[in-house]
């Protein structure tokens, strides 16, 4: 085995080329890591949102609360069902909620739709770690709202004390900012449900009913009871199921991102190959010497392949490191089902890391393969005679 030290030294001696190649491959890994970091962020928010004992009841056939409608009388009766967990005061952990998707203005002047959720008093308990991090929770009937901290960074009027204008007729005063453990609620504005009913004139229907079952077995029974109702065709999704269905936007990003990553990898592969071919032709004499000394073809092959992988690994590491400054950023992505904006925290999760490693390996191996093969095809005498 030709020692790795040889490769390190060579990379250092031809440092200009090494640096250029590392920068080239690093930039490419950076792009993909960013994109998949967004996907990971989206994934994480969906995962965190799924309480295994939670149920979301919508109209049957709807995958999204925003287009669903459950008759109020039915919705209210669901809250009284057996099997729902109760809090210390004995109130069932269940809430009727109404979602509205008005247009809001971003800080940069562009517009998009956001989710304004009319909630019941129990709603915060049905989210993971719902915490008001500044200000206070709203009081019903006063035109107040609380806004997710993520949202407050991106939309006009959403900072503490601001007036949030939604659509043309509604405006709410922001009295508090909240976090909810990274869950989907962190893309939302919360107001009192009855306030929202009044403002939008949507009476008689709720978008959904949320509840938490007291136990996992009780969960299944509850589901069956709710769905079994012949008159109102309802569907009771478990929270994990419900949020997985929102995957469509995530899927689009994954496909999109994969195409980008594959093309970038191919492009960078050619670049790595270029560098390695030049390295081989510059070192033909050395190769001849090594072979004359007794190193086998295989040793030489592995050595050059290893150098190529090393080179690309440096690039990959650089690319990943360069994403760190972005880890604090919040992105807005469109949810293509509800046409609302989902705010996502960038997260260098398993998907992003896997993609980065895969790309690096592909570039290193395929980029270095042909040059390495060329290195071993050189016969000893010719290479020693090389000028």
């Amino acid at each position, binding site marked *: 085995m030709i020692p790795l030290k040889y490769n390190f030294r060579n990379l250092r001696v031809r440092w200009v080329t090494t640096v250029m190649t590392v920068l*080239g491959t690093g930039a490419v890994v950076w792009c993909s890591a960013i994109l998949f970091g967004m996907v990971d962020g989206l994934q994480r928010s969906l995962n965190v949102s799924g309480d295994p004992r939670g149920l979301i009841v919508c109209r049957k056939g709807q995958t999204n609360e925003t287009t669903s409608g459950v008759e109020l009388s039915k919705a209210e009766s669901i809250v009284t069902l057996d099997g729902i967990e109760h809090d210390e005061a004995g109130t069932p952990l269940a809430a009727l909620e109404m979602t509205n998707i008005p247009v809001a203005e*971003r800080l940069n002047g562009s517009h998009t739709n956001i989710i304004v959720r009319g909630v019941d008093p129990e709603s915060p308990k049905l989210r993971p770690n719902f915490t008001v991090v500044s200000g206070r929770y709203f009081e019903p009937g006063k035109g107040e709202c609380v806004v997710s901290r993520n949202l407050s960074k991106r939309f006009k009027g959403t900072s503490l004390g601001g007036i949030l204008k939604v*659509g043309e007729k509604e405006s709410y005063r922001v009295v508090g900012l909240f976090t909810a453990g990274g869950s989907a609620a962190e893309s939302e504005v919360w107001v009192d449900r009855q306030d929202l009913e009044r403002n939008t004139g949507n009476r008689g229907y709720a978008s959904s009913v949320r509840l938490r079952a007291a136990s996992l077995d009780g969960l299944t029974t509850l589901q069956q009871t709710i769905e079994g109702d012949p008159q109102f065709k309802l569907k009771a999704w478990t929270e994990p199921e419900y949020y997985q269905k929102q995957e469509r936007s995530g899927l689009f990003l994954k496909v999109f991102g994969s195409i980008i990553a594959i093309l970038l990898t191919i492009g960078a592969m050619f670049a790595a190959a270029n560098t390695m071919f030049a390295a081989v032709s510059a070192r033909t004499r050395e190769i001849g010497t090594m072979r004359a000394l007794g190193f086998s073809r295989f040793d030489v092959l592995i050595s050059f392949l290893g150098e190529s992988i090393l080179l690309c690994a440096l690039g990959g590491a650089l690319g990943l490191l360069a994403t760190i400054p972005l880890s604090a950023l919040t992105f807005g992505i469109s949810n293509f089902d509800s046409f609302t904006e989902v705010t996502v925290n960038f997260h260098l999760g398993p998907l992003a890391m896997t993609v980065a490693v895969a790309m690096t390996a592909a570039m290193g191996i395929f980029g270095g393969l042909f040059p390495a093969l060329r290195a071993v095809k050189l016969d000893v005498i010719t290479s020693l005679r090389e000028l």
Partner: protein
Amino acid sequence: MKFLHYILRNARRNPLRSVLTVASVSVCLFLMMILISFLSINDEVNDSVRIFNRIVTMSSQGFGQPVPIVRVSEIAALDGVIATTPFSWYGGKYNEEVMPFAQFGVDPKTIFTIYDELHLPADQLKAFQEDMTGCVIGKKLAGDRGLKVGDRLPLKDGAYPVNLDLTIRGIYDGPANRDLRMCMFNWGYLDESLKRDFGGRGSGNAGIVVIKCRNAEIMASLSKQIDKEYANSDTPTRTQTEEQFGKMFAEMIGDVRSFIGNVGLAVVFSLVCVAGNAMAMSMRERTTEVAVLKAIGFGKPLLLFFVLAEAVLVAGLGGVVGALGSKLFFDAFDVARYSAGFLPFFYVPWSTAILGLALSLAIGFLSGVVPAFRAAQLPVVTGLRKVV
């Protein structure tokens, strides 16, 4: 000019290196063409609809809010309006596929007057108008799925709690940059079903109203007039030109735009490194030759020119293959049919392809700058020193 053959030969000196560089540049540019086209198609389409003089009325509170159907006929009565139609989004499943194409409830009597760039044979139009459960589909959709006039098109689980059992009565055609994968059905059928089976819940909603104006000049005043009329109602409206409406959608994509911008910059940076590296390696191998040229009397400006020209040539070739190649590729292959309903069409606009080409030339130039200066600065004597 007279030095062209030398420059060309230099580019071909190490054919493998040049090919690999061209390959890198072209693959990355191909990708950038895809990304940029996403944005520029939208802009191009929005520009192109200007001539149709259409305005769109929606609820000022967003898509979630209704526009009462009565307004369709109220607006039609206004001066300067040629025709109006509701345009109610259904968005249902077809054979368990979630929203594989857009589905809208419209007024069959006016829809093709308003969208006059879309063509439907007269007999099919008549059939569509006479059949309450009829629908028309776009030519590309028919092609994708082998659907013909007379086939059934059952849709379910859309934005409304009714299922639509439609029959295809016509297949419409139009320019390549319009959605030729839509399904349009009779709004009345949806409304009747809601009233009959669901107590009218959700009925009477036009969704949005699309209006054909007599000419371009009155669009602005008409829009204001409509919004003023309904400003104090329960469902105030927001009316804008079709172009503005389209731009509104584009805005919703939000951060994707800046992401694409950043990826673009990173890719350009990467390519400058890659092409620059290749150029630097080549020049390192030619130090003696550069010195000889200097000895003979070729000055710094000429040497700069030689190196930069070679770099621009190689990268430019990558640009031709990548940018122009991508345009040809997407013109030849209809990738939209495999996008599961996300994209009604996809192509690379000329403006984008030219941008890609220009970008490749810039990359070539930037990549050649440092090697060019090094060659120009090389002292002749150093270059001529015999390497023993």
